[in-house]
Protein backbone atom coordinates (compact mmCIF):
# COMPACT_ATOMS: atom_id res chain seq x y z
CA UNK A 1 0.00 0.00 0.00
CA UNK A 2 2.73 2.45 0.77
CA UNK A 3 4.68 1.86 -2.37
CA UNK A 4 2.97 4.32 -4.66
CA UNK A 5 5.20 3.65 -7.66
CA UNK A 6 7.07 0.43 -8.28
CA UNK A 7 8.91 -0.06 -11.54
CA UNK A 8 10.82 -3.27 -12.05
CA UNK A 9 12.98 -3.62 -15.13
CA UNK A 10 10.59 -1.52 -17.19
CA UNK A 11 11.32 -1.40 -20.90
CA UNK A 12 9.20 1.01 -22.95
CA UNK A 13 9.50 1.47 -26.69
CA UNK A 14 8.66 4.38 -29.00
CA UNK A 15 8.93 3.56 -32.67
CA UNK A 16 11.69 0.99 -32.39
CA UNK A 17 13.66 2.95 -29.83
CA UNK A 18 13.75 1.78 -26.19
CA UNK A 19 13.12 5.02 -24.32
CA UNK A 20 13.23 3.09 -21.06
CA UNK A 21 15.76 0.28 -20.98
CA UNK A 22 14.97 -1.65 -17.83
CA UNK A 23 14.26 1.04 -15.26
CA UNK A 24 13.83 0.25 -11.56
CA UNK A 25 12.21 2.74 -9.23
CA UNK A 26 10.16 2.72 -6.11
CA UNK A 27 8.46 5.71 -4.55
CA UNK A 28 6.82 5.81 -1.13
CA UNK A 29 3.69 7.69 -0.20
CA UNK A 30 4.34 11.31 0.78
CA UNK A 31 7.65 11.57 -1.03
CA UNK A 32 8.61 14.42 -3.33
CA UNK A 33 10.90 12.67 -5.77
CA UNK A 34 12.89 14.69 -8.29
CA UNK A 35 14.09 13.09 -11.52
CA UNK A 36 17.25 14.63 -12.88
CA UNK A 37 19.36 13.67 -15.81
CA UNK A 38 20.51 14.80 -19.22
CA UNK A 39 18.23 15.63 -22.15
CA UNK A 40 16.82 12.53 -23.70
CA UNK A 41 17.53 10.45 -20.61
CA UNK A 42 13.99 9.14 -20.32
CA UNK A 43 12.43 11.30 -17.63
CA UNK A 44 9.38 12.19 -19.65
CA UNK A 45 9.03 8.58 -20.74
CA UNK A 46 9.16 7.42 -17.16
CA UNK A 47 6.41 9.80 -16.12
CA UNK A 48 4.29 8.70 -19.07
CA UNK A 49 4.69 5.07 -18.11
CA UNK A 50 3.48 5.86 -14.61
CA UNK A 51 0.43 7.65 -16.05
CA UNK A 52 -0.30 4.70 -18.32
CA UNK A 53 0.27 6.72 -21.48
CA UNK A 54 3.23 4.70 -22.65
CA UNK A 55 2.81 0.93 -22.71
CA UNK A 56 5.20 -1.27 -20.75
CA UNK A 57 7.00 -3.60 -23.08
CA UNK A 58 8.90 -5.67 -20.52
CA UNK A 59 9.11 -5.71 -16.74
CA UNK A 60 6.33 -4.64 -14.43
CA UNK A 61 5.05 -1.26 -13.39
CA UNK A 62 2.74 -0.93 -10.41
CA UNK A 63 1.15 2.38 -9.51
CA UNK A 64 -0.92 2.82 -6.35
CA UNK A 65 -0.68 -0.91 -5.92
CA UNK A 66 -2.18 -1.71 -9.32
CA UNK A 67 -0.53 -3.02 -12.45
CA UNK A 68 -0.52 -0.39 -15.20
CA UNK A 69 -1.06 -3.05 -17.81
CA UNK A 70 -4.33 -4.33 -16.48
CA UNK A 71 -5.79 -1.61 -14.29
CA UNK A 72 -4.87 1.47 -16.21
CA UNK A 73 -8.32 2.97 -16.08
CA UNK A 74 -8.57 2.75 -12.30
CA UNK A 75 -5.09 4.12 -11.81
CA UNK A 76 -5.79 7.11 -14.00
CA UNK A 77 -8.65 8.45 -11.94
CA UNK A 78 -6.21 8.82 -9.05
CA UNK A 79 -3.19 10.20 -10.90
CA UNK A 80 -2.54 13.70 -12.24
CA UNK A 81 -0.03 14.48 -14.99
CA UNK A 82 1.43 17.75 -16.17
CA UNK A 83 3.37 17.04 -19.34
CA UNK A 84 5.53 19.26 -21.54
CA UNK A 85 2.26 20.36 -23.16
CA UNK A 86 -0.40 22.14 -21.15
CA UNK A 87 -3.50 20.27 -22.27
CA UNK A 88 -5.43 23.49 -22.86
CA UNK A 89 -8.04 24.22 -25.51
CA UNK A 90 -6.48 27.32 -27.01
CA UNK A 91 -9.74 28.77 -28.29
CA UNK A 92 -11.39 28.71 -24.89
CA UNK A 93 -10.82 31.17 -22.09
CA UNK A 94 -8.64 30.33 -19.12
CA UNK A 95 -11.69 30.02 -16.87
CA UNK A 96 -13.53 27.75 -19.31
CA UNK A 97 -10.51 25.47 -19.60
CA UNK A 98 -10.02 25.05 -15.91
CA UNK A 99 -13.75 24.61 -15.37
CA UNK A 100 -13.71 21.85 -18.00
CA UNK A 101 -10.96 19.90 -16.30
CA UNK A 102 -12.62 20.58 -12.96
CA UNK A 103 -15.89 19.13 -14.22
CA UNK A 104 -14.02 16.09 -15.52
CA UNK A 105 -12.60 15.55 -12.06
CA UNK A 106 -15.95 16.17 -10.39
CA UNK A 107 -14.69 19.28 -8.63
CA UNK A 108 -17.11 21.91 -7.39
CA UNK A 109 -17.34 25.47 -8.69
CA UNK A 110 -15.71 26.70 -5.49
CA UNK A 111 -12.78 24.33 -5.84
CA UNK A 112 -12.22 25.52 -9.38
CA UNK A 113 -12.25 29.14 -8.26
CA UNK A 114 -9.85 28.34 -5.44
CA UNK A 115 -7.42 26.63 -7.83
CA UNK A 116 -7.54 29.60 -10.21
CA UNK A 117 -6.91 31.98 -7.36
CA UNK A 118 -4.08 29.83 -6.11
CA UNK A 119 -2.28 29.80 -9.47
CA UNK A 120 -2.96 33.48 -10.17
CA UNK A 121 -5.17 33.16 -13.23
CA UNK A 122 -8.32 34.72 -11.85
CA UNK A 123 -9.49 38.28 -12.49
CA UNK A 124 -8.72 39.83 -15.87
CA UNK A 125 -6.96 36.75 -17.19
CA UNK A 126 -9.93 34.45 -16.65
CA UNK A 127 -11.66 35.66 -19.81
CA UNK A 128 -8.67 35.80 -22.14
CA UNK A 129 -8.52 32.95 -24.68
CA UNK A 130 -5.71 30.58 -23.75
CA UNK A 131 -4.04 31.23 -27.10
CA UNK A 132 -3.54 34.88 -26.12
CA UNK A 133 -2.04 34.20 -22.72
CA UNK A 134 1.69 34.42 -22.14
CA UNK A 135 3.66 31.19 -21.88
CA UNK A 136 3.83 31.38 -18.10
CA UNK A 137 0.15 32.19 -17.80
CA UNK A 138 -0.71 29.11 -19.83
CA UNK A 139 1.49 27.01 -17.59
CA UNK A 140 -0.37 28.42 -14.61
CA UNK A 141 -3.68 27.41 -16.17
CA UNK A 142 -2.39 23.89 -16.65
CA UNK A 143 -1.29 23.76 -13.03
CA UNK A 144 -4.66 25.04 -11.87
CA UNK A 145 -6.34 22.30 -13.91
CA UNK A 146 -4.11 19.82 -12.16
CA UNK A 147 -4.72 21.20 -8.70
CA UNK A 148 -8.49 20.72 -9.01
CA UNK A 149 -7.96 17.02 -9.59
CA UNK A 150 -6.76 16.34 -6.03
CA UNK A 151 -4.71 13.42 -7.32
CA UNK A 152 -2.96 10.92 -5.06
CA UNK A 153 0.05 10.78 -7.33
CA UNK A 154 1.25 13.95 -9.02
CA UNK A 155 3.47 13.48 -12.04
CA UNK A 156 5.04 16.74 -13.20
CA UNK A 157 7.33 17.27 -16.16
CA UNK A 158 9.42 20.39 -15.59
CA UNK A 159 6.61 22.20 -13.81
CA UNK A 160 8.71 25.25 -13.01
CA UNK A 161 9.63 26.01 -16.60
CA UNK A 162 8.01 29.25 -17.69
CA UNK A 163 6.79 30.27 -14.24
CA UNK A 164 7.99 33.53 -12.74
CA UNK A 165 9.67 33.82 -9.35
CA UNK A 166 6.46 34.07 -7.34
CA UNK A 167 4.83 31.33 -9.42
CA UNK A 168 7.69 28.99 -8.59
CA UNK A 169 7.29 29.65 -4.91
CA UNK A 170 3.53 29.20 -5.09
CA UNK A 171 3.97 25.92 -6.92
CA UNK A 172 6.45 24.65 -4.33
CA UNK A 173 4.01 25.51 -1.59
CA UNK A 174 1.23 23.67 -3.38
CA UNK A 175 3.39 20.58 -3.89
CA UNK A 176 4.66 20.56 -0.30
CA UNK A 177 1.19 20.83 1.12
CA UNK A 178 -0.07 18.11 -1.23
CA UNK A 179 2.72 15.83 -0.04
CA UNK A 180 2.02 16.72 3.56
CA UNK A 181 -1.62 15.75 2.99
CA UNK A 182 -0.54 12.30 1.90
CA UNK A 183 -0.13 12.72 -1.86
CA UNK A 184 3.03 11.64 -3.64
CA UNK A 185 4.89 13.87 -6.07
CA UNK A 186 7.27 12.80 -8.83
CA UNK A 187 8.73 15.59 -10.90
CA UNK A 188 11.34 15.98 -13.58
CA UNK A 189 13.46 19.09 -13.34
CA UNK A 190 16.66 20.57 -14.71
CA UNK A 191 16.90 23.30 -12.10
CA UNK A 192 19.29 21.82 -9.56
CA UNK A 193 18.98 24.34 -6.75
CA UNK A 194 15.23 24.68 -6.80
CA UNK A 195 14.75 20.94 -7.08
CA UNK A 196 17.14 20.33 -4.20
CA UNK A 197 15.12 22.67 -2.00
CA UNK A 198 11.89 20.89 -2.82
CA UNK A 199 12.86 17.24 -3.05
CA UNK A 200 12.76 14.71 -0.28
CA UNK A 201 14.79 12.49 -2.62
CA UNK A 202 16.50 12.86 -5.98
CA UNK A 203 17.35 10.22 -8.55
CA UNK A 204 19.19 10.51 -11.81
CA UNK A 205 17.74 9.10 -15.00
CA UNK A 206 20.15 8.32 -17.80
CA UNK A 207 20.11 6.11 -20.84
CA UNK A 208 16.63 4.86 -20.01
CA UNK A 209 17.72 3.68 -16.56
CA UNK A 210 17.25 5.08 -13.07
CA UNK A 211 20.33 5.49 -10.94
CA UNK A 212 19.38 5.68 -7.29
CA UNK A 213 21.20 8.29 -5.28
CA UNK A 214 20.33 9.75 -1.98
Amino acid at each position, binding site marked *: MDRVVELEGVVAVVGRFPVLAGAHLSVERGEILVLQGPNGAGKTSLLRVCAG*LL*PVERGTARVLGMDVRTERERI*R*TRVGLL*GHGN*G*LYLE*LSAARNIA*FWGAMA*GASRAEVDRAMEMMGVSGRLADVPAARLSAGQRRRCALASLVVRRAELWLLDEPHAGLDATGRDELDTVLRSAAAAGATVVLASHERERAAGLATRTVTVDGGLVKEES
Partner: protein
Amino acid sequence: MTLGVTATARIVAGKDLAVEARSRVLTNQVAPFAAIVMVMFAFALDNDGILLRVAPGLVWLAVLFSLLVVVQRSFAVETADGALDALRVAGVDPAAIFLGKSVALMVQLLVLEALLAGLAVVLYGVTMGGAGFVQLCATMLVATVGLGFVGTLYGGLAAGARGRETLLPLLLLPVVAPVLIGATRATEAAFGSGGAEVSEGLPWLALLAAFAVIFGAVGSLAFGPLIDE
Protein backbone atom coordinates in the same frame (compact mmCIF):
# COMPACT_ATOMS: atom_id res chain seq x y z
CA MET B 1 -15.05 8.51 -11.64
CA THR B 2 -17.65 10.58 -9.95
CA LEU B 3 -19.55 11.30 -13.15
CA GLY B 4 -21.59 8.93 -15.29
CA VAL B 5 -20.98 8.39 -18.97
CA THR B 6 -23.86 10.60 -20.06
CA ALA B 7 -22.86 13.51 -17.87
CA THR B 8 -19.25 13.28 -19.03
CA ALA B 9 -20.30 12.99 -22.65
CA ARG B 10 -22.43 16.07 -22.23
CA ILE B 11 -19.51 18.06 -20.87
CA VAL B 12 -17.26 16.92 -23.73
CA ALA B 13 -19.90 17.81 -26.31
CA GLY B 14 -20.45 21.17 -24.65
CA LYS B 15 -16.74 21.87 -24.78
CA ASP B 16 -16.48 20.96 -28.45
CA LEU B 17 -19.41 23.17 -29.31
CA ALA B 18 -17.91 26.02 -27.28
CA VAL B 19 -14.69 25.69 -29.26
CA GLU B 20 -16.72 25.85 -32.44
CA ALA B 21 -18.66 28.84 -31.17
CA ARG B 22 -15.36 30.62 -30.56
CA SER B 23 -13.53 29.63 -33.69
CA ARG B 24 -16.51 29.48 -36.06
CA VAL B 25 -14.80 27.11 -38.41
CA LEU B 26 -18.08 25.50 -39.40
CA THR B 27 -20.01 28.67 -40.06
CA ASN B 28 -17.17 30.58 -41.64
CA GLN B 29 -15.22 27.94 -43.47
CA VAL B 30 -17.11 24.75 -43.98
CA ALA B 31 -20.54 26.15 -44.69
CA PRO B 32 -19.38 28.69 -47.30
CA PHE B 33 -17.32 25.98 -48.91
CA ALA B 34 -20.28 23.64 -49.09
CA ALA B 35 -22.41 26.47 -50.41
CA ILE B 36 -19.92 27.30 -53.13
CA VAL B 37 -19.91 23.67 -54.23
CA MET B 38 -23.63 23.88 -54.70
CA VAL B 39 -23.47 27.22 -56.51
CA MET B 40 -20.73 26.08 -58.83
CA PHE B 41 -22.66 23.05 -59.84
CA ALA B 42 -25.70 25.14 -60.41
CA PHE B 43 -23.62 27.30 -62.69
CA ALA B 44 -22.06 24.39 -64.55
CA LEU B 45 -25.19 22.30 -65.06
CA ASP B 46 -27.99 24.80 -65.09
CA ASN B 47 -29.25 24.45 -68.61
CA ASP B 48 -29.17 20.73 -68.80
CA GLY B 49 -31.95 19.59 -66.48
CA ILE B 50 -29.38 17.39 -64.82
CA LEU B 51 -29.35 19.59 -61.80
CA LEU B 52 -32.42 18.19 -60.15
CA ARG B 53 -31.19 14.71 -60.80
CA VAL B 54 -27.84 15.21 -59.10
CA ALA B 55 -29.02 17.52 -56.32
CA PRO B 56 -29.28 14.80 -53.64
CA GLY B 57 -25.85 13.44 -54.50
CA LEU B 58 -24.39 16.92 -54.32
CA VAL B 59 -25.92 17.60 -50.94
CA TRP B 60 -24.38 14.47 -49.50
CA LEU B 61 -21.09 14.97 -51.25
CA ALA B 62 -20.86 18.39 -49.64
CA VAL B 63 -21.73 16.78 -46.32
CA LEU B 64 -18.95 14.25 -46.77
CA PHE B 65 -16.42 17.01 -47.52
CA SER B 66 -17.56 18.89 -44.49
CA LEU B 67 -17.46 15.79 -42.32
CA LEU B 68 -13.80 15.35 -43.04
CA VAL B 69 -12.94 18.96 -42.33
CA VAL B 70 -14.94 19.06 -39.12
CA VAL B 71 -13.51 15.78 -37.84
CA GLN B 72 -9.99 16.88 -38.57
CA ARG B 73 -10.67 20.10 -36.75
CA SER B 74 -12.29 18.31 -33.83
CA PHE B 75 -9.16 16.27 -33.19
CA ALA B 76 -6.70 19.02 -34.06
CA VAL B 77 -8.19 20.87 -31.11
CA GLU B 78 -7.48 17.89 -28.87
CA THR B 79 -3.91 17.34 -29.96
CA ALA B 80 -2.73 20.95 -30.36
CA ASP B 81 -1.65 21.30 -26.74
CA GLY B 82 -1.79 17.72 -25.51
CA ALA B 83 -5.41 17.82 -24.33
CA LEU B 84 -6.14 14.31 -25.60
CA ASP B 85 -3.34 12.96 -23.44
CA ALA B 86 -4.74 14.92 -20.56
CA LEU B 87 -8.18 13.42 -21.16
CA ARG B 88 -6.72 9.95 -21.20
CA VAL B 89 -4.79 10.50 -18.00
CA ALA B 90 -7.77 12.10 -16.37
CA GLY B 91 -9.36 8.67 -16.57
CA VAL B 92 -12.27 10.00 -18.58
CA ASP B 93 -14.27 7.06 -19.91
CA PRO B 94 -13.33 6.71 -23.60
CA ALA B 95 -16.91 5.81 -24.41
CA ALA B 96 -17.93 9.17 -22.97
CA ILE B 97 -15.33 10.98 -25.04
CA PHE B 98 -16.53 9.10 -28.09
CA LEU B 99 -20.17 9.89 -27.47
CA GLY B 100 -19.53 13.49 -26.55
CA LYS B 101 -17.44 14.22 -29.56
CA SER B 102 -19.85 12.35 -31.82
CA VAL B 103 -22.79 14.36 -30.57
CA ALA B 104 -20.96 17.65 -31.10
CA LEU B 105 -20.09 16.50 -34.60
CA MET B 106 -23.66 15.52 -35.33
CA VAL B 107 -25.00 18.86 -34.17
CA GLN B 108 -22.61 20.64 -36.50
CA LEU B 109 -23.42 18.36 -39.41
CA LEU B 110 -27.15 18.79 -38.91
CA VAL B 111 -26.85 22.56 -39.03
CA LEU B 112 -24.89 22.22 -42.22
CA GLU B 113 -27.31 19.79 -43.81
CA ALA B 114 -30.25 22.03 -43.05
CA LEU B 115 -28.39 24.81 -44.80
CA LEU B 116 -27.53 22.66 -47.80
CA ALA B 117 -31.01 21.29 -48.18
CA GLY B 118 -32.31 24.84 -48.02
CA LEU B 119 -29.85 25.84 -50.71
CA ALA B 120 -30.88 22.91 -52.87
CA VAL B 121 -34.47 24.07 -52.66
CA VAL B 122 -33.57 27.65 -53.51
CA LEU B 123 -30.86 27.11 -56.10
CA TYR B 124 -32.02 23.98 -57.82
CA GLY B 125 -35.72 24.56 -57.53
CA VAL B 126 -36.32 21.28 -55.69
CA THR B 127 -39.93 20.83 -54.63
CA MET B 128 -41.14 18.49 -51.93
CA GLY B 129 -44.45 17.29 -50.59
CA GLY B 130 -45.13 16.93 -46.87
CA ALA B 131 -44.21 13.23 -46.91
CA GLY B 132 -41.02 14.04 -48.75
CA PHE B 133 -40.11 16.66 -46.19
CA VAL B 134 -40.66 14.29 -43.28
CA GLN B 135 -38.57 11.67 -44.99
CA LEU B 136 -35.82 14.15 -45.72
CA CYS B 137 -35.66 15.09 -42.07
CA ALA B 138 -35.61 11.44 -41.03
CA THR B 139 -32.87 10.65 -43.53
CA MET B 140 -30.73 13.50 -42.35
CA LEU B 141 -31.13 12.59 -38.75
CA VAL B 142 -30.31 8.94 -39.17
CA ALA B 143 -27.52 9.42 -41.68
CA THR B 144 -25.96 12.11 -39.53
CA VAL B 145 -25.94 9.89 -36.48
CA GLY B 146 -24.13 7.24 -38.50
CA LEU B 147 -21.67 9.70 -40.02
CA GLY B 148 -21.02 11.31 -36.65
CA PHE B 149 -20.07 7.98 -35.14
CA VAL B 150 -17.97 6.91 -38.09
CA GLY B 151 -16.28 10.29 -38.29
CA THR B 152 -15.33 10.33 -34.64
CA LEU B 153 -13.96 6.84 -34.86
CA TYR B 154 -11.95 7.93 -37.89
CA GLY B 155 -10.63 10.98 -36.09
CA GLY B 156 -9.65 8.92 -33.07
CA LEU B 157 -7.73 6.56 -35.29
CA ALA B 158 -5.96 9.42 -37.03
CA ALA B 159 -5.08 11.10 -33.74
CA GLY B 160 -3.67 7.85 -32.35
CA ALA B 161 -0.51 6.10 -33.38
CA ARG B 162 1.36 7.56 -36.31
CA GLY B 163 2.01 4.60 -38.56
CA ARG B 164 -1.55 3.45 -38.32
CA GLU B 165 -3.09 6.33 -40.17
CA THR B 166 -1.93 4.97 -43.47
CA LEU B 167 -4.47 2.19 -43.16
CA LEU B 168 -7.24 4.51 -42.26
CA PRO B 169 -8.84 5.57 -45.48
CA LEU B 170 -8.74 2.03 -46.69
CA LEU B 171 -10.63 0.87 -43.65
CA LEU B 172 -12.98 3.75 -43.44
CA LEU B 173 -14.03 4.61 -46.93
CA PRO B 174 -15.74 1.35 -47.82
CA VAL B 175 -17.75 1.98 -44.69
CA VAL B 176 -18.76 5.55 -45.41
CA ALA B 177 -19.67 4.89 -49.01
CA PRO B 178 -22.79 2.83 -48.25
CA VAL B 179 -24.00 5.48 -45.84
CA LEU B 180 -23.67 8.13 -48.49
CA ILE B 181 -25.27 6.06 -51.19
CA GLY B 182 -28.10 5.19 -48.83
CA ALA B 183 -28.58 8.79 -47.86
CA THR B 184 -28.47 9.90 -51.47
CA ARG B 185 -31.10 7.39 -52.53
CA ALA B 186 -33.35 8.24 -49.61
CA THR B 187 -32.98 11.93 -50.43
CA GLU B 188 -33.69 11.29 -54.09
CA ALA B 189 -36.90 9.65 -53.01
CA ALA B 190 -37.73 12.62 -50.80
CA PHE B 191 -36.91 15.14 -53.54
CA GLY B 192 -38.64 12.99 -56.13
CA SER B 193 -35.51 13.26 -58.31
CA GLY B 194 -35.72 11.22 -61.48
CA GLY B 195 -39.32 10.33 -60.71
CA ALA B 196 -38.50 8.42 -57.52
CA GLU B 197 -41.35 7.70 -55.10
CA VAL B 198 -41.17 8.70 -51.47
CA SER B 199 -41.75 5.13 -50.36
CA GLU B 200 -38.69 3.95 -52.27
CA GLY B 201 -36.60 5.65 -49.64
CA LEU B 202 -37.71 3.51 -46.73
CA PRO B 203 -35.36 0.55 -47.20
CA TRP B 204 -32.48 2.99 -47.44
CA LEU B 205 -33.57 4.61 -44.22
CA ALA B 206 -33.53 1.22 -42.54
CA LEU B 207 -30.03 0.60 -43.84
CA LEU B 208 -28.88 3.95 -42.46
CA ALA B 209 -30.42 3.20 -39.08
CA ALA B 210 -28.65 -0.14 -38.94
CA PHE B 211 -25.37 1.62 -39.68
CA ALA B 212 -25.88 4.19 -36.99
CA VAL B 213 -26.60 1.54 -34.39
CA ILE B 214 -23.68 -0.66 -35.36
CA PHE B 215 -21.19 2.17 -35.42
CA GLY B 216 -22.45 3.68 -32.20
CA ALA B 217 -21.92 0.35 -30.47
CA VAL B 218 -18.58 -0.48 -32.08
CA GLY B 219 -17.29 3.02 -31.48
CA SER B 220 -18.17 3.09 -27.79
CA LEU B 221 -16.26 -0.13 -27.27
CA ALA B 222 -13.37 0.42 -29.64
CA PHE B 223 -12.57 4.07 -29.01
CA GLY B 224 -10.62 3.46 -25.82
CA PRO B 225 -8.18 0.96 -27.30
CA LEU B 226 -7.89 3.13 -30.41
CA ILE B 227 -6.79 6.35 -28.77
CA ASP B 228 -4.79 4.44 -26.18
CA GLU B 229 -2.69 2.77 -28.84
